[in-house]
């Protein structure tokens, strides 16, 4: 297209970062290369289809610039525009959407300090206060101008709160997790990073810390986590890995779907949609797929785990990455997808490393590729990293993000199984959903369905955090009561007196200690007006001011709304304002008036927002107001 670029030019380093990501220097002068007068001035290939076909590289290229330089300059965006044939205003629109990208110059080292609800229960405010004293205010350079720190939404390290992620840009970009973090450790890490002596590994998965049940023979989903610590394909197979895939080849697509149906597996991402239904929707379009060379089926593993308090997918990916790949490969067999994507949360460096290594190993050993294990199945997986946007966990926003657009949700219908990624039929499954698949195939759908209850089958992962004695992920059959789960985790920490439990994260619901006998099933939680959501079980003792938690949740949504639809974009702001007034005890009119207004806002957000974010942005607040007289 006819691009118009401002006069800003890329630096050689920025150019190198983009070229490296795109696999080499540009083809012609028209994409920013050195002119070849003879060829370039006589003919040029391009066109809209070509531009559209490379648009999906936008996010990876922006990552490459951010990682190398530490921020993304207009010159770098112009060069990106030229190379990908994307208008610079759109490059800017996309780059400015994501929290991990800085469009202003900033130091190469940035410490992201989580101050979200789980970390609040573990001293994040005090940590921030001390950093403020020692390093100076957030968002300003420290360590001789080479670093800075900033507050962050939940980093998904809640079992080891408070958490800090240190990111360093450069030729060898690095990310380093500090959890639990102390002021001293943060300070020394910032200094190390600024002086280029960062440890190579971003993090260490410590099963004792993160999987308290480790070693228990009862574990099925988590049985390998920690046992195959430097994950290798051999180790995975020794522990029973890829048995299910072999079995799936014997069953064939129909057989796999039969078992999946029998298992009654519901999606673990939060929406609890029957997994088999999605797969079948693609399988039913297989004739169209065969008849039409332009048609493709896609499979996406949604690993953009960003719900505050949630960290189960991270631990699975860090501790048992091949299980995710195996689940996806079986899904590919059933759905006819030849390409899979893992859309990984950008702030998960260790999971990223392990998945990338696992994909590489699986390709090497023929578990991914043109003809998997000689079965004729063709399937490969590409790892894509998010860039700091909670909304991209919404499946249609995720499509837009992969495609190189702003991560704004699409209206449904059409549903992903009709027109998803690149407008092709697409299945999106959560990480936890996918690791249930090998289990189902191995033991048979019917046997699997006997775990849990009639309508909530199978084992479930729970993220215990907050004021709990032994935080971490816990595996328990569906139907386990909240009380049983708390007992497994050693009970309430902090003051030891439970005030509230947040189920399902910021988009979830509060339940009171009185409701502790609720069976943790989809139907059980629904019966008390709550949700299982992403499996968050966050305990709050009675030292916590619930109002502050509610305010933090409101701030979270204000920060994370994409801004596309009015009810959500403005609703989350008005909600936060009303809450602030109530917390400060200076209501407009009476408190009752404010509460009525909050209720109306909540209903409009729930009824009229495009996607789940807006529809649930008021649900935690509403559930709290129903249970307690928070603003008495």
């Amino acid at each position: 297209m006819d691009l118009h670029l401002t006069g800003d030019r890329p630096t050689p380093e920025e150019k190198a970062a983009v070229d490296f990501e795109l696999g080499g220097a540009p083809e012609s002068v028209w994409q920013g290369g050195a002119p070849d007068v003879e060829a370039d001035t006589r003919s040029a290939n391009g066109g809209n289809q070509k531009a559209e076909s490379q648009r999906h590289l936008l996010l990876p290229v922006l990552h490459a610039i951010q990682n190398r330089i530490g921020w993304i300059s207009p010159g770098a965006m112009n060069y990106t525009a030229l190379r990908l044939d994307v208008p610079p205003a759109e490059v800017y629109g996309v780059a400015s959407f994501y929290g991990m990208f800085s469009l202003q110059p900033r130091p190469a080292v940035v410490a992201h300090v989580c101050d979200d609800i789980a970390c609040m229960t573990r001293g994040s405010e005090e940590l921030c206060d001390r950093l403020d004293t020692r390093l100076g205010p957030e968002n300003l350079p420290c360590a001789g101008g080479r670093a800075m720190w900033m507050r962050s939404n939940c980093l998904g390290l809640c079992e080891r709160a408070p958490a800090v992620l240190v990111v360093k840009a450069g030729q060898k970009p690095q990310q380093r997790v500090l959890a639990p973090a102390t002021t001293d450790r943060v300070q020394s890490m910032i200094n190390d990073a600024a002086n280029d002596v960062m440890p190579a590994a971003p993090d260490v998965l410590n099963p004792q810390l993160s999987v308290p049940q480790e070693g228990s023979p009862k574990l099925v989903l988590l049985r390998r986590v920690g046992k195959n610590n430097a994950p290798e394909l051999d180790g995975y197979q020794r522990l029973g890995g890829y048995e299910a895939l072999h079995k799936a080849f014997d069953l064939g697509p129909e057989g796999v779907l039969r078992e999946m149906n029998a298992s009654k597996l519901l999606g673990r991402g939060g929406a609890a949609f029957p997994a088999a239904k999605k797969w079948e929707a693609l399988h039913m379009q297989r004739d169209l797929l065969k008849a039409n060379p332009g048609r493709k089926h896609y499979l996406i593993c949604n690993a953009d785990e960003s719900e505050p308090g949630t960290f189960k997918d991270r631990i699975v990916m860090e501790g048992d990455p091949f299980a995710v790949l195996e689940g996806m490969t079986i899904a590919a067999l059933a759905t006819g997808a030849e390409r899979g994507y893992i859309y990984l949360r950008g702030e998960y460096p260790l999971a990223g490393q392990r998945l990338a290594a696992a994909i590489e190993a699986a390709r090497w050993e023929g578990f991914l590729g043109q003809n998997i294990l000689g079965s004729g199945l063709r399937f490969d997986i590409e790892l894509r990293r998010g860039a700091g946007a909670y909304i991209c966990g919404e499946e249609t926003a995720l499509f837009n993000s992969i495609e190189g657009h702003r991560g704004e949700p699409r209206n449904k219908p059409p549903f992903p199984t009709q027109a998803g990624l690149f407008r092709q039929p697409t299945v999106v499954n959560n990480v936890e959903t996918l690791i249930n698949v090998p289990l189902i195939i191995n033991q048979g759908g019917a046997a699997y369905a006997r775990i849990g209850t009639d309508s909530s089958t199978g084992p479930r992962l729970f993220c215990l955090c907050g004021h709990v004695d032994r935080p971490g992920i816990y595996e328990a059959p569906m139907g386990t009561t909240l009380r049983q789960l708390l007992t497994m985790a050693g009970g309430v920490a902090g003051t030891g007196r439970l005030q509230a439990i947040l189920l399902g994260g910021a988009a979830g619901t509060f339940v009171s200690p009185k409701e502790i006998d609720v069976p943790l099933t989809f139907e059980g939680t629904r019966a008390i007006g709550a949700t299982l959501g992403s499996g968050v079980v966050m305990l709050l003792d009675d030292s916590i001011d619930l109002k502050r938690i509610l305010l933090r949740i409101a701030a979270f949504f204000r920060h994370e709304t994409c801004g596309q639809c009015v009810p959500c974009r403005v609703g989350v702001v008005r909600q936060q304002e009303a809450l602030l007034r109530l917390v400060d005890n200076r209501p407009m009119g009476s408190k009752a008036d404010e509460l009525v207004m909050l209720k109306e806002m909540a209903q409009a957000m729930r009824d009229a927002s495009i996607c789940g974010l807006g529809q649930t942005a008021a649900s935690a607040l509403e559930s709290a107001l129903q249970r307690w007289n928070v603003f008495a």
Partner: protein
Amino acid sequence: MILLWGSNARETHPIFFHHVLKGIHNGAKLYVIDPRRTSSAQWADTWLGLDVGSDIYLANAMAREIINSGLENTKFIEHATSGFEAYREHVQKFTLERAECETGVPAAAIKQVAHAYAGAGRAQLCWTLGITEHHNAVDNVVALINLALLTGHVGRYGSGVCPLRGQNNVQGGGDMGAIPDRLPGFQHVENDELRGKFEKAWGTKIPATKGWHISHMLDAMERRELTTLYCLGENPADSEADRHRALKLLSGLEFMVVQDLFYTKTAELADVVLPASAGWCESEGTVTSSERRVQRVRAAVPMPTGVRDDTEIIFDLARRLGHNWGEPKAECIWNELRSLSPMNAGMSYARLEEHGGMQWPCYDEQHPGEMFLHGRLWHDPLIGPRAPFSVVESVDPVDALDPQFPIRLTTGRRLDSYNTGVQSGWLNSPLRHEEAIDLSPADCRQYNLHEGDKVRVTSRRGSVVAPVRFDSGLRPGLAFLTMHFPDQVATNDLTIDAVDPRSGTSEFKATAIRIEKCLEQ
């Protein structure tokens, strides 16, 4: 598939290009053939940057490739055309390899566009002045029409050929008989029966032979055969190629009347100037667009004092000359036209209003108008005469390049400006910069020029001074100027008045120049 040839529609026909873009988004392929990599070309799946004036070579080479690959539409050729054998033989010498030498375009690209055009289910071939402002303009057009006939991309829904008109009523001017050999409705003046119809209606004799087009008129002035000129809404003193000659001839006229909105360069030379209203917003009437759509223009604002409507002036003039034509009412004039021009007969003002304009031909008040022409060629049996292939040779531009004049200057229009600038000059366009000669960055390096440096541009006819601007869409040896700012850069001091004998157009697109950096900047 859309093939834009010698057209930068993105800038010169922006709303037409919206429709092209719609096609592109629906999966249509776009090919652009233009010496410059224009903003239109940047949308193309493939752009072919041929040498100025080598269009026929390219077209004939495409034809050879199509024929030799067996991609011609044999059925259509047999059914509806004539002269194919001679054409086929003629194009055999235009091999891809020689075409690459002659046009500069890689053989592979020529082959690609030939196959794409011939293989497309539907293909539009559109051109603008890049084809027609040449000394062999008609040959150029013919060469393209040959391609359409060869592939059957004509007279079908979605397939056709289309010259994109530069003014809102170029087509209408032709419709109304403002061409030397036609009466309104393209009825030939030398056809006695047709002429008789007009003579009867108008009660006067009409010269039985065709007249002059503008280039012929200039020649006639030179021969002193033409001594009086009535010039309406045209500014030949600025717009004609080789402006010095045009100025001299216009100045030498015995008597000239200029009827215009503006006191133009031409008006300065006139004996009488008749201030006229703006046709598009101060008058009633119709215009015809590129797609033959006749639409109403309406008076939206009152005309300034002292200014009169064109028709009113002409009617008054007639009255002074002893003819009472009655009330100068646009609709009455239109209805008279409808009674004489069959192709407009069905287009009452009421119907034009109702349909948002209608495309001719529209033979009666039940006729819906026609969205494309030449459908008759597909009718079985064939209606009317066969469409002829024509053998055309490639002839280089008249103004040859040589070591003295090594750079090829071509001309065109920019997005925010229009012709000699008498109208668009009043627009405060944020896009506008002072007129500059566009050069390739490589040439600028060679001549040690920076953007904004002033250069003297010299052709065999004249010389102007202009600042330099880089345009990476130009290759070395190619330069670009517009005629939008004649007071600042009189581009037509440079251009050549090598005229196509049939169309009367000058070769604005190909001038040989040299550039020298001005010592005084």
